[in-house]
């Protein structure tokens, strides 16, 4: 059994606080992804769970046992390291079988498991290469192999697919899930690839600056981000944010006006409206659902990327000048449409979005206020 629990865990390196008062509860057999910006403390969190680093304060529980002080080898975990860390003096076979050999597993069993892993990892014929004779992606796969040949309680994986190409990633993703299910093992998975986090995990934990922001199933994080950070972080390209204020259930900014906002009357002032690029569409292509108002904007740049097309819009709100260069990012609206949409650069179009896809946040605290402007709906978090 391999439930994992962090209680008020912090880790400080001198002045730097890498992880700050983290509380995390992971059920046995669950697949959790940790995501967050570079340097936010993901690897540090894994290291504390593995026992490689001792937390500065707080406790780590594995299987409801406080494992503080328990050496890594007794925590029964397997780990894929972000820096790969192959043993340079061992060939691929020895690297992969290392953990089993340490435990004195039968040679036969070792060979079988390594063979299985080799097939999964598409590393056939490389067993007696040295790490220095492998490509970057091959090294990373060996590192994964070193972990999956084992049968641990907890899998810790730190960006295990970072160096793999898309096809292989997809393949490895399913394989890792399959293995995780087969071994019925708890998996904690660090990734910077949202698609990975979204498709693989039971729940996603979003961390920022060492602080846990939200932990929830992937779609919840996507549809009901707990705060501005999560909203902006999850989803690529990122959610559009428009700062404004709410007066009498009406959101107003320089460019956008939305009615029927589900906030108590009077709770006005600094509110940020969030809308995802794919939720914006040209007025012309009106879909189902109730639209939340129209924005007139000029098309700045069109970026076609195969299966979709990004359209950078400059809203033509009141008081908005044409001086685009200033504060470019904040003032742009990004719209994602199918490649066959007929739009030209510099054209001025009307775009719209559904009320159901609007998010409102408190600009000051960043906390989410309302997701999907159904007037009757209460804010979730």
């Amino acid at each position, binding site marked *: 059994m391999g439930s994992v629990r962090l209680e008020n865990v912090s880790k400080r390196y001198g002045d730097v606080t890498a992880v700050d008062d983290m509380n995390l509860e992971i059920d046995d057999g669950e697949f959790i992804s940790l995501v967050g910006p570079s340097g936010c403390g993901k690897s540090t969190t894994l290291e504390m769970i593995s026992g490689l680093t001792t937390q500065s304060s707080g406790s780590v529980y594995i299987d409801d046992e406080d494992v503080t002080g328990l*050496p890594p080898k*007794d925590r029964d975990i397997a780990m894929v390291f972000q820096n790969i860390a192959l043993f340079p003096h061992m060939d691929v076979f020895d690297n992969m079988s290392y953990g089993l050999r340490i*435990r004195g597993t039968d040679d036969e069993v070792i060979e079988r498991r390594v063979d299985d892993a080799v097939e999964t990892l598409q590393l056939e014929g490389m067993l007696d290469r040295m790490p220095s004779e492998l490509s970057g992606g091959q090294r990373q796969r060996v590192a994964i192999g070193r972990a999956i040949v084992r049968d641990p309680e907890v899998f810790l994986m730190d960006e295990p697919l970072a160096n793999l190409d898309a096809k292989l990633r997809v393949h490895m993703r399913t394989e890792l899930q399959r293995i995780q299910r087969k071994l019925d093992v708890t998996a904690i998975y660090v990734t910077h690839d949202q698609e990975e986090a979204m498709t693989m995990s039971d729940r996603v934990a979003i961390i920022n600056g060492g602080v846990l922001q939200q932990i929830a199933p992937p779609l919840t994080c996507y549809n009901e981000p707990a705060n501005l950070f999560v909203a902006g972080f999850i989803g690529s390209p990122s959610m559009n944010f428009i700062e404004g204020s709410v007066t009498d259930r009406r959101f107003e900014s320089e460019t956008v006006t939305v009615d029927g906002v589900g906030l108590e009357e009077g709770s006005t002032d600094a509110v940020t409206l969030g809308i995802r690029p794919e939720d914006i569409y040209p007025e012309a292509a009106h879909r189902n659902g109730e639209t939340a108002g129209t924005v007139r904007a000029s098309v700045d740049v069109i970026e076609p990327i195969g299966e979709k097309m990004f359209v950078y819009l400059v809203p033509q709100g009141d008081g908005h000048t044409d001086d685009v260069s200033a504060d470019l990012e904040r003032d742009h609206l990004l719209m994602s449409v199918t490649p066959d949409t007929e739009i030209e650069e510099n054209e001025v179009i009307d775009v719209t979005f559904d009320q159901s896809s609007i998010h409102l946040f408190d600009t000051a605290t960043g906390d989410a206020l309302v997701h999907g402007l159904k007037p009757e709906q209460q804010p979730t978090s």
Partner: protein
Amino acid sequence: MSAEDSTTASRVETSTSRSRYRVDRTVLNWLERRSDTQFVYMMLLPVFALLGTMAIWPLLYTGNISLHADNIAGANPVGEFVGLENYVEILTGQANLQRPFFSLSSPFTSAVPVTLIYTVSAVAVETVLGFAMALILNKEFRGRRWARVALILPWAVPIVIQGMIFYLMFQPSIGFAVGPLNDLGLISTTPLANSRDGLFVAVIADIWKQSAFMALLILAGLQSIDRSLYDVAEVAGASRIQQFRTITLPLVLPALLVALLFRTIGALKVYGLVESTAGCNTVPTLSCLVIDLWSGNRYGSAAAVAFIIAALIGVLLLGYLVQIRQQENGGR
């Protein structure tokens, strides 16, 4: 090929490691569960048990002897307790030593100057030559293996033999070195009888042997450097000399400092080489004093000089240690 070898090797290892694992498991497990601090001290137990009985206790014992008078006639060579008298007498030049402890008027026949001259000149040259040798040995060329053996071999020569070689080399009529060097005006016809020349011979002999020591340590340091760093540097546009200065040098520096540290200590303690070439009467190093006193059954004075040597080395090495400390702080 080598990959194959190592595969089989480690596969063989498996069976043995398995049984070992079983046997030591309890101890290892217990150890593994210690906190870092406890673990560290447990791990240091064997070293300090060994050093304690074989070095520290003996030094305390000898230190105690150094506080007692000489007793050259009695059955017990250690006389009555005299406190620091031995030290005072030696340092003030009152003690009857084979050669003066420190005398600037006769730098080649008094212990401290002789030892310092010896140390500085030998270690300086050894460092330069050792580095050059290590750089050459780190290169790929045919026969490198044998070249390494050949260049390291002098270090493997027992001191007695090393001394004999140079004794004979500088023996007039037998050694081939005297004539030419004398013609050049570098040495007298009897270099081993002359304090200055004898020192020169000892330094040469030391360089011959100990450059290899430097080379070996530096070579090991060179071998440990991650090759991909050179790739980076090369792409960044570093010339060979710049690569040497910015990567090789700083990364072998720790090993070099260790070599330098221990060569300096070794040179400051030199005895065997001197004794087997020019002799302690001609080139009276500090250790020569200790041995002479000890041979003369003057245990108290011998112990005191030994401790003075240690103190002297300690003072001289303070500089190195500061360097090393900086290295460590910078390096991690």
